[in-house]
């Protein structure tokens, strides 16, 4: 008998929380984007584990869409990082405060 699927979902929760801590804690804006990739991967693990438990393939189709969205998000987010760097010569989230009142 193999591993119960609940362990996969718990591992997904651990990776999700690590990504959340990374988004909160890091100061470099590229590292914040890397942490969001970690959270997307946690969601992928949960989708595939639920799929195998519930005998369906719809979750794997949605993992396919998440891969697409992650590629688009990386392209747009890193393009924004490049534009911000060209404008401000800095990638520190503490110093990018134009929208703060």
């Amino acid at each position, binding site marked *: *008998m*193999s*591993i119960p699927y609940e*362990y*996969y*979902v*718990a*591992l*997904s*929760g*651990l*990776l*999700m*929380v*690590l*990504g*959340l801590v990374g988004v*909160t*804690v*890091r*100061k*470099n804006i590229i*590292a914040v984007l*890397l*942490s969001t*990739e*970690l959270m997307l*991967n946690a969601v*992928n*693990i949960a989708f*595939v584990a639920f*799929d*195998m*438990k*519930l*005998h*369906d*393939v*719809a979750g*794997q*189709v949605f993992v*396919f*869409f998440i*891969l697409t*969205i*992650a*590629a*688009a998000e*990386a*392209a*747009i987010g*890193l*393009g924004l*990082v*490049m*534009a911000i760097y*060209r404008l401000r010569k800095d*990638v*520190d989230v*503490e110093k990018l405060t134009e929208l703060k009142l």
Partner: protein
Amino acid sequence: MDLHVIAFWSFSALAVISAFGVVFARNIVYNILSLISVLIAVSGLFFNLGAELIGSLQILIYAVAIVVFYVLVISTVPEYKGQSVDPKYMLISIPVGFGIFMELAYVSIYGAWASATGIFSPEVLKEVGNIKAVSSMLFTKYLFPFEVASLILLVAMIGAILLGRKEQVMEENNEHSV
């Protein structure tokens, strides 16, 4: 001991250790190397679960294409001087994150999993194969979201070209003309 069990524990330990490297390592290059390690470990977990199509797409798209974006950007943006981690957010976010993880782990291990099961039982999957099952659903029931995803990729490509364009080219042309 079953091979599935060994594979699960080794891949998940690798994924968690590398995820700590992604979040807490100081150098951004080490962050990206740890992210590649996480992605390959997660792909191994997908193969272990029996989702071969998603595992290979994970390596192809994530561990190659997306990581190349990040490497290009960190080679363009010079080194970041300053502290990598904010200690005042660290004090708040570590206990809160631990609490959220405990809650998620409790719900996923002891929670009720009763739900309707689909038609792709392991016997059917053994007969059809995972790739054929996933792609048959993808190109019949989810055809419209598939097309919308291609549209999103097109819009993202145009946006990335517009955002990453250098403004200096036009300024140089103006200087030459003046």
